[in-house]
């Protein structure tokens, strides 16, 4: 009797495990299939948009990408905007997070939600309101506009990862440092910063990816001669669609994969996004 129950339980377990496995495979295929198609098409040797799979292979789309001024300018602008905005977001974000974490003042939580608000405000709203606002205060430089927009969307990520790192830091470290004679500034650089560094770097890499990838906010803020790569791709795609976009897509996928690999090596993806129900930060 008992063995029968046990056996039927085992069959149930096997069935359960099997179906979960199948679901997992389906999800991965669903997520990866478009990527595989894009990468395959980026090596298409035909000069027109043919059906999948490609009949011949070449690097013509990559060649075209690197020889089109529009894309190269876009890439250069994108890199400048991302590096600038991430540097600004990181410095202000870390300062804000440290202040919010340690200071006790009324309205602290309100201020925190205020800082994190761009996470929930739709990017279309951010883009359009920034356009109106920057217009009203007469800022017409395209680079400044783009950087301002990107700081706004990356700042919450920098604050959040820094705050998560600070929460994991036992207060006794700071207190011991102070009792040993370290002033607040010195305590920050000798104890706090080295111990939250990984969280800060993670926030930086994540923000960089977010900024490089952004279309919506940038679309509102581009002003000749500054336009970002995703915006360039979008306009070009509307005018004359070809497979250069597949080549860019493939390269971006590789860069993103590298960034994620880097992120995992530095902090571990688990720590950054939590571990499901066993979320630890």
């Amino acid at each position, binding site marked *: 009797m008992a063995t029968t129950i046990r056996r039927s339980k085992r069959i149930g377990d096997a069935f359960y495990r099997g179906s979960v496995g199948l679901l997992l495979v389906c999800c991965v295929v669903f997520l990866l299939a478009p990527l595989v198609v894009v990468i395959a098409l980026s090596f298409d040797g035909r000069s027109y948009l043919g059906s999948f799979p490609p009949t011949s292979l070449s690097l013509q789309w990559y060649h075209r990408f690197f020889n089109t001024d529009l894309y190269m300018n876009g890439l250069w602008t994108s890199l400048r905007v991302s590096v600038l905005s991430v540097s600004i977001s990181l410095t202000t974000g870390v300062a804000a997070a440290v202040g919010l974490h340690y200071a006790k003042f009324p309205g602290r939580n309100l201020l925190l939600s205020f800082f994190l608000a761009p996470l929930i405000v739709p990017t279309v709203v951010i883009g359009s309101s920034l356009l109106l606002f920057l217009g009203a205060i007469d800022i017409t430089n395209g680079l400044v506009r783009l950087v301002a927009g990107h700081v706004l969307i990356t700042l919450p990520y920098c604050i959040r990862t820094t705050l998560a790192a600070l929460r994991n830091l*036992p207060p*006794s*470290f700071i*207190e*011991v*440092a*102070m*009792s*040993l*004679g*370290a*002033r607040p500034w*010195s305590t920050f650089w*000798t*104890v706090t910063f*080295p*111990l939250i560094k990984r969280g800060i770097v993670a926030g930086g890499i994540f923000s960089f990816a977010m900024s490089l990838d952004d279309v919506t906010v940038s679309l509102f803020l581009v002003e000749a001669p500054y336009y970002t790569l995703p915006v360039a791709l979008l306009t070009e795609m509307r005018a004359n669609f070809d497979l250069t976009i597949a080549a860019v897509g493939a390269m971006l996928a590789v860069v993103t994969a590298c960034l994620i690999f880097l992120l995992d090596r530095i902090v571990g993806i688990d720590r950054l996004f939590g571990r499901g129900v066993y979320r630890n930060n």
Partner: protein
Amino acid sequence: MNVVELTGVRKAFKDVLALKEISFSVEKGKILSLLGPSGCGKTTTLRIIAGFEEPDAGSVFLSKRSMNGLRPYERNVGLVFQDYALFPHMTVAANVAYGMRQRRVPANTIKERVEYYLSLVRLTSLADRFPRELSGGQQQRVALARALATEPEVLLLDEPLGALDAKLRTELQVELKGLLREIGATSIVVTHDQEEAMSLGDEVIVMNEGSIEQRGTPADIYDRPTTRFVAEFVGKSNWFLGCVVGQGQQGSTIRTEDGLELQLAETLEADRAVEVCVRPERIRLTDPGLHRTNGAVVNAFEARVKEVIHVGSDINVFVDMGQDRSLLVKQQNQGHRLTAGELVMLCFGAIDCHVIPSTP
């Protein structure tokens, strides 16, 4: 000379009064234990001395200098936390050197002192290790060396052995006390563990609800508790509540509500209501009828064994005296067997009865 002195220190958090007018002092080279249940204000006291909290009223003096308004890094206080809080990104030697670096001690002095304090805690060979590579006991010693290296006026230890397992704890109690004695560090140990408080402290302060209940040597605290709280918090007690009915040259007699008469060694005024505590190890169990032969025994009652619990070296015996009165008797385990239901005689002397002086 008093190294640490607190006068009328009061502290409230929002509307909860954490400390109500605490005053005490610690002499140079002495170890004082602050003992009490959680929420009694002992940790707040420590944090006020260290400078993490400002008192609402009263002052803290370190070597006669008022600490009012001074930040933690402007005082000279050593701290050892329960979780040790060793900096994980620094080696053992760098941890010990940290305080001296912050206080701009010359490099060669730092080197000498790191060597000295590491040898003091017998960790010289582990100087280049990182804290995560050390055992709990070793980490504790690093924390101690780090706190001592800045040569603080007072060393504050917050549950210093709380994170260690029971066996190691007893061992380290002896070692820690010896070490603190050796360097003559004025220390305050905050703990809720009475064994830790009594074994480390030259003197113990028992705290409850933000006030000091009693200050005394470990023996004083245990043998002569001044309040019912102290008697109940430190060790176990049997209670007799009664009224003084007779006085003599040898002491006085009280009668409890359930009609028991007890001889006390103290002379008390008549009709006074008293609370008397008798420690479980002061009571002896004998066969019925045997007690009369021993002249020292003045209190003897018949009782029935309710339960016998062996706890290794000791045996805890619960006896029933009738009328809902049950007593705990602690005997040394010397091999004799008692069984539940057995009739016994319990005996204790007049001097084994301690009268709580603060009886209202």
